């Protein structure tokens, strides 16, 4: 009975009181505790310098934390010796912003690398690598070199390589930050597919809210080395409590003046994630069609090939009926929209 309860309580990743101090003075992360369930897609978001990279490197001990513990599937990594740690790392794959492929090796050999490191014979390794390249959709590039591929294709190779050792956890360190929006959404879709197909727990480190919104179930907001806020993505982003979370909802910088000058209104956040192609001037036509007048508080959108990416923050009159009509209007037009509570 007791054993059963322990299994039930076990998260895939348990980070407890983690801290990292560089050179006895710079505190990169402070007392971070997170539990991440098996099969989750967990976003860790923060502005640059918030400690995201340090945190993700502490999870596979590329950086040794100065305090706290990391348990992956029940095993405390900080207690392992070098050799045990190397074995354990085969269960924790990682993909990077700069892809980090071997430039002098073709894609097939790149995907084979973790397998040859694990001393699997060349024939079996190549067979497995081809299967993986097929899963990520670039089997035809098996014999091409990284320099002959686009950024998105290189990241696909890196994902195939990350899957080679059948990992339980996949760490993504700004994996889409150097890709354009179209490629970003296709890579995110691939990560989602992999999560479902192999039940891999995925941790996504990013500074882009759109990334978290499009695939993460849970999110932790990192600010100056601490977790400012964590929870389900929809609740954190629609009702941000901490200053850090509010700053992310207003990427251009959160300002108290903005809120006071908008007293007596309510906010709706509209997200264009590239799923639909729309040329319709939504805000204007909302006024015409359902008679809701909204002003744009903040906008950051771009149109690429007729598809719009980005987000809008609108303010409407403080009235339940008006807010509901506006939300319904966006839903009808297949654009995701949520009310955001920003008032302090």
């Amino acid at each position, binding site marked *: 009975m007791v054993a059963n309860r322990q299994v039930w309580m076990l998260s895939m990743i348990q980070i407890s009181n983690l801290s990292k101090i560089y050179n006895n003075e710079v505190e990169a992360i402070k007392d971070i505790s997170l539990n991440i369930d098996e099969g989750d897609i967990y976003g860790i978001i923060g502005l640059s310098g918030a400690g995201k990279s340090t945190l993700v490197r502490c999870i*596979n001990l*590329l950086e040794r934390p100065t305090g706290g513990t990391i348990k992956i599937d029940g095993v405390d990594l900080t207690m392992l010796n070098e050799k045990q*740690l*190397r*074995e*354990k*790392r*085969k269960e*924790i*794959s*990682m993909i*990077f912003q*700069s892809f*980090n*492929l*071997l*430039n*002098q*090796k*073709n894609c097939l050999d790149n995907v084979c*690398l*973790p397998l*040859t*490191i*694990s001393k699997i014979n060349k024939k079996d390794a190549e067979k497995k690598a081809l299967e993986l390249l097929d899963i990520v959709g670039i089997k035809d590039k098996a014999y091409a*070199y*990284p*320099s*002959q591929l686009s950024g998105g294709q290189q990241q696909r190779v890196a994902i195939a*390589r990350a899957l080679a*050792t059948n990992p339980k956890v996949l760490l993504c360190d700004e994996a889409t930050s150097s890709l354009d929006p179209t490629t970003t959404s296709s890579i995110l879709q691939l990560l989602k597919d992999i999560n479902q197909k192999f039940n891999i727990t995925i941790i996504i480190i990013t500074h882009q809210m759109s990334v978290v919104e499009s695939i993460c179930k849970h999110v932790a907001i990192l600010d100056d080395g601490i977790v400012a806020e964590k929870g389900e993505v929809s609740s954190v982003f629609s009702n941000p409590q901490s200053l850090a979370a509010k700053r992310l909802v207003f990427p251009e910088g959160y300002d108290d003046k903005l809120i006071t000058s908008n007293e007596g209104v309510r906010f709706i956040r509209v997200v264009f994630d590239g799923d639909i192609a729309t040329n319709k001037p939504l805000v204007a036509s909302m006024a015409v069609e359902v008679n809701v007048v909204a002003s744009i508080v903040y906008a950051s959108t771009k149109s690429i090939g007729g598809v719009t990416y980005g987000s809008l923050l609108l303010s409407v009159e403080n009235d339940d009926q008006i807010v509901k009509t506006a939300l319904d209007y966006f839903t009808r037009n297949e654009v995701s929209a949520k009310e955001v509570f920003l008032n302090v």
Partner: protein
Amino acid sequence: MFNIEKIQEALEIVVTQFPLALWETIYVTLLATFFATLIGLPLGVLLVIGKKDGIKPLPNWLNNFIDLFINVLRSIPFLILMILVFPLTRLIVGTTVGTVASIVPLVIASFPFIARLVESSLKEVDPNVIEMAQSIGASPLQIVTKVMLPEAYPSLLQNLTIATTTILGYSAMSGIIGGGGLGKIAINYGYYRYKYLIMLFAVIVLVLLVQVFQSVGSLLAAKSDKRLK
């Protein structure tokens, strides 16, 4: 100095003595490069991975010792080094004179140089790629053999070409201690017997040889590089 008679005499020596001298120069150069690489490559690897932030940090005193050792050897002029290593040469080859004996000082003079070249080639490898290798659980030895050396291969080839041509230059100097080859001909005829024309021919052949080594090396390096094609 360039009358018909002298040219004829010079040509005769070119025909009778140059083939053997050329062969001696080539094999001394290649053998010396080979042995110097055998010592210099691992030493260069140690220089990179042993650093404090390297993948296999060595104790500070050892890093400093290797560094000093290389610098000291590199700062001794080759002419003097040849004579300094006589005891070692006698130990290894049994004699201090002759073509084979000249390989020993050549190796001693050039392995520290090769270690530095290897160090600079390996430093070019993207640290992110090394981090990736650590993240997939590669051991330090695996990172060296499966990531760093393959990634640095074109650059290593380019640098070893430079080393080969430098060793070729040194090998000509070893004519002084009785080493064979084109250097010996140049010194014996040009310096001791004032036959400048023969020396000139020997120098021309040496220049051509450097050209050939350099071109072949650069070509191989360029061909093996899979970046930017």
